[in-house]
């Protein structure tokens, strides 16, 4: 029996595609693999659907880190969704960095439906890394207070 991985007390939002990564995470679960309980998985049909705005909203809602994960190139259920996502993220991750959001808090990966172990490992790695960085002090939504 694997040791329980303790929660690092951080929030990771994972935006995953239904066909590969979500199934992979499912596999990690059915295979009783333990991984950090810090991740909240949000299922999408395809990584191509993931709007960069979701990541911003994740940070607004208290995320300390974000993972975006989908099918390997050439394996997309909808043929090209992940290719389009790959291009999009190449540009948007720079925008995030330019606006001052630490790039160690945003992770991208390809995890297939058979890679339950990879998923568990990924989450554990990200959780450990981000726990070291500490909680994200994102912008406060505060009124103009005078």
């Amino acid at each position: 029996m694997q040791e329980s991985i303790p929660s690092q007390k951080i929030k990771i939002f994972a935006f995953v595609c239904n066909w590969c990564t979500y199934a992979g995470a499912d596999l990690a679960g059915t295979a009783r693999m333990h991984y950090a309980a810090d991740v909240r998985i949000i299922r999408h049909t395809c990584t191509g659907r993931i709007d960069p705005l979701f990541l911003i909203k994740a940070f607004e809602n208290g995320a300390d880190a974000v993972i975006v994960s989908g099918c390997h190139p050439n394996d997309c259920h909808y043929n090209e969704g992940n290719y389009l996502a790959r291009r999009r993220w190449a540009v948007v991750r720079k925008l995030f960095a330019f606006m001052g959001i630490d790039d160690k808090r945003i992770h991208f990966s390809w995890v297939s439906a058979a890679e339950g172990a990879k998923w568990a490992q990924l989450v554990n790695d990200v959780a450990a890394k981000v726990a070291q960085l500490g909680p994200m002090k994102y912008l406060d939504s505060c009124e103009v207070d005078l």
Partner: protein
Amino acid sequence: MKTIEQQKAEIVHLFEQKKISMVVAFENYRGIVRPVFVKDIKDVEKISFDMSGKQNLATYLKRAEIKKQFPLAMVVRPTEKSSIALLIKENQLKVEDVLLIESMVSQDQIEWKKAQDIEIDRLWKMSFSERMDFWKKNFQNCIRCYACRQSCPHCYCQYCKADKNQPTWVERSAHLQGNFSWNFLRAFHQAGRCIECGACENACPANIPLMLLNRMQNKITAESFGESDPKKYLLSDWSKDDDNSFFL
């Protein structure tokens, strides 16, 4: 490149032939160069062909009142030409809707862009939190007037995401978090499309350096995927050889 007389003659000819009902151009009103809408031959005199206006005339092509006047003529610089080409590419405009009257370029953007390049490099050299502080200071002053969106020809969505509240994508309130999200959203939607005319930065009453975001993104897009393709929008295309290095 036509002379001013030739351009004027062309416009008069178009009016006489009843090929157009309106010309969109710049005029000089007491030293201020601003858009003008000429509907009559006698007003052609008003047009100032030095084209030093800071607005992008193509932004008027999204308005319903202007669309009613198609086909119309527009006195264009490379700025407006690029915008119109993009609008045609994105199916917002038909080629026959706008007759282009090419003018001489007098807008000198080189110096201004050099200064921006220096500023972008300076920002990249900073740490993440320093950059965040820079943008915080700027977005603190954003009042969400949406002058940036309205003055941009490429922001043509009838229902902007920022105006939707069921669900709320971007909070409407002018607090720091909402301002950050709004400007991020707009910058991202311009990635690979922005033609760097500077109309947004010129329109902003709070003097936020919006062009830094847009130019930074254009640079990344060009470096990663090549220059803008007249046939396709770079971010709706893909290649097997795209950068995969940042995927775990």
